[in-house]
């Protein structure tokens, strides 16, 4: 199981890009933290989610 934004999900084995495709997250406006490291966008299709991984996906909103 992979913990994503506090929820345990059975997505181990998928790449991060494959997981994101099943969600409403828009890769253009997010930042992904995996096990306390930021995952670069260029690695979304290389990073394979593993059992025990902890992810936080932040979706930026406008205004500054």
């Amino acid at each position: 199981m992979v913990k994503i934004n506090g929820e345990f999900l059975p997505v181990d084995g998928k790449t991060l890009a494959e997981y994101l495709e099943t969600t409403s997250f828009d890769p253009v406006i997010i930042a992904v933290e995996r096990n306390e490291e930021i995952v670069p966008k260029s690695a979304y299709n290389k990073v394979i989610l593993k059992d025990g991984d902890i992810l936080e996906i932040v979706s930026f909103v406008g205004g500054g």
Partner: protein
Amino acid sequence: MIPTREEWQRTLTERHGEELQKKLSGATVAICGLGGLGSNIAVSLARVGIGKLILIDFDMVDITNLHRQQYKAEQIGMSKTDALAQNLSEIAPYLEIEQHNVKVTTDNIVGLLHNADIICEAFDRPEEKSMLVDCVFEMLSDKYLVSGSGMAGLGSANLIKTRKLTSHFILCGDEISDISDGMGLVCSRVMLCAAHQAHAVIRIIAGEKDF
């Protein structure tokens, strides 16, 4: 009359203590975007006695900025970098300022930011916020990044918070209130988020690890 550099430094040291003030005076902080977040972050950091600020924005001061950004009516039409540098120099005459009147892109980001110890993300658009985070952690991974997301509208001040996502990435804001959701940006709430970002910068410089 403007105090001498020595008087200025002595007064700051009396306030903050010698150890912290030395760290603050030796720090270089880059601010990407000089709107409601960036201009307010800059004022806080100038007042606290940061040694050097790198100010980056491509825009000009507009009448629509004045309800929340640290500019004056007479500065309408000036570049934000020039206008803010002028205002900061009046507040903190010994602050070192580096100005870049450009748009931050993936091509110029390393050149603009490699001398900074800490980078503040203070853009308007979510795409640009995300791009900056991505580029910093891909190309400048030794830097600290303090970002702002979610400060629009009239929601409670208490919903604005500071969250540590990694050892080098701090996120401030309520993470929800989008500028496109209705009411735009209100000065006091934008200043709250800017104050969270400025305070995170100061805490990083002070060596705090917990957020």
